[in-house]
């Protein structure tokens, strides 16, 4: 089948403003959008720029807006989006070139919630044991791959990139509800700040956009409840 691929193009060194370029190419319905982008770059227009790495939905490099929705190009099949496909960079972050955006503000916000394990007790001889029930408490939020699909689909983040954003909350949730971690209070204080969870208006865009199907709005709701009640388990 013939697929029409309309791609957002912008090179700040040459272009005054962004434009769209259309490419036609042969594809089968099980081709991924990433395959189409590779074909365009390899055979039609070598100047096209986009990020990719593992190409198997794990590294989170190729998040982009496909037909208006944040998705991973490596997990989106032609049969899911049809033969007329529009590909644009994710919103709310500065475009560096074509489909590549500046991820610094996103990772700055991510770092603010201290996304690492904190426990000042001396380490035991083997591992720090945890019951299956306690592990289940934050199982969903361990799946985040930091692709930024959620954060860049959030209207509050579009308004201000100082807003911590869903991905930062997901990673805060992962450690706050881990009963082996000892810095829950500090993290709660961070997500309680002016640009924290109170700016979430429960739009659910993040949950719809997450390629890992994390229940992000639910996780943010649990953070809000923890802030109000102080109860973690």
């Amino acid at each position, binding site marked *: 089948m013939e697929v029409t691929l309309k791609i957002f193009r912008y090179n700040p060194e040459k272009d005054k403003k962004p434009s769209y370029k259309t490419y036609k190419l042969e594809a089968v319905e099980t081709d991924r959008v990433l395959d189409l982008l590779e074909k365009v770059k390899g055979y039609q227009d070598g100047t096209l720029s986009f990020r990719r790495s593992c190409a198997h939905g794990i590294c989170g490099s190729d998040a982009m807006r496909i037909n208006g929705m944040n998705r991973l190009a490596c997990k989106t099949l032609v049969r899911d989006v049809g033969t007329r496909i529009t590909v644009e960079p994710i919103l709310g972050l500065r475009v560096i070139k074509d489909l590549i955006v500046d991820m610094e503000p996103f990772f700055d916000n991510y770092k603010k919630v201290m996304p690492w394990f904190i426990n000042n007790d001396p380490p035991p001889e083997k591992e720090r044991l945890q*019951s299956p029930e*306690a592990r289940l408490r934050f199982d969903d939020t361990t799946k985040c791959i930091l692709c930024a699909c959620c954060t860049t689909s959030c*209207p*509050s983040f*579009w*308004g*201000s990139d100082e807003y911590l954003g869903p991905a930062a909350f997901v990673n805060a949730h992962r450690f706050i509800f881990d*009963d082996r971690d000892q810095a*829950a*209070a500090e993290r*709660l*204080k961070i997500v*309680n*700040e*002016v640009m*924290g*969870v*109170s*700016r979430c*208006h429960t739009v659910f865009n993040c949950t719809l956009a997450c390629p890992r199907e994390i229940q992000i709005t639910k996780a943010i709701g649990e953070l*809000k409840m*923890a*802030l*109000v009640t*102080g*109860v*973690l*388990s």
Partner: protein
Amino acid sequence: MKPRTVSFTQRGFDFETFMWFFTRVSALVMYALALTGLVGALIMGARTQMNLADLMRWVFTPNVTHVQNTNVPDLAPWTTSFWKLVASAFVFFATSHGLHGLLSVIEDYLTLPWLRRTLRILVLLLTLFMIFVGVYLIWTS
């Protein structure tokens, strides 16, 4: 297993989070106030003396002006300080609930910091003014 908790002082106080919580609670309070107005009106005879539109007007603002043109013969039970208090509480919670909604729109859709700050102050002043006018009218009507 001992429940894990974090104390209020450890979590810290943030005005935005407080307003987020207040907005949820104020909605519930308004439901309770509306129910109070409805039950009160029915006890005072609204079932046979008022039509549904007048009853609803009273439920959402229990003010005697909404009763004057109905078939209620005795206005005395409808004009007590209790109903003025309920109506004042309604004005306060409804206006401050709306204030937070408006502030959320400003925060989400305005990117200029000075415009955002100016509108925040304007909305706050407008809210205080509306609460003052509303409560003044309730107690002087």
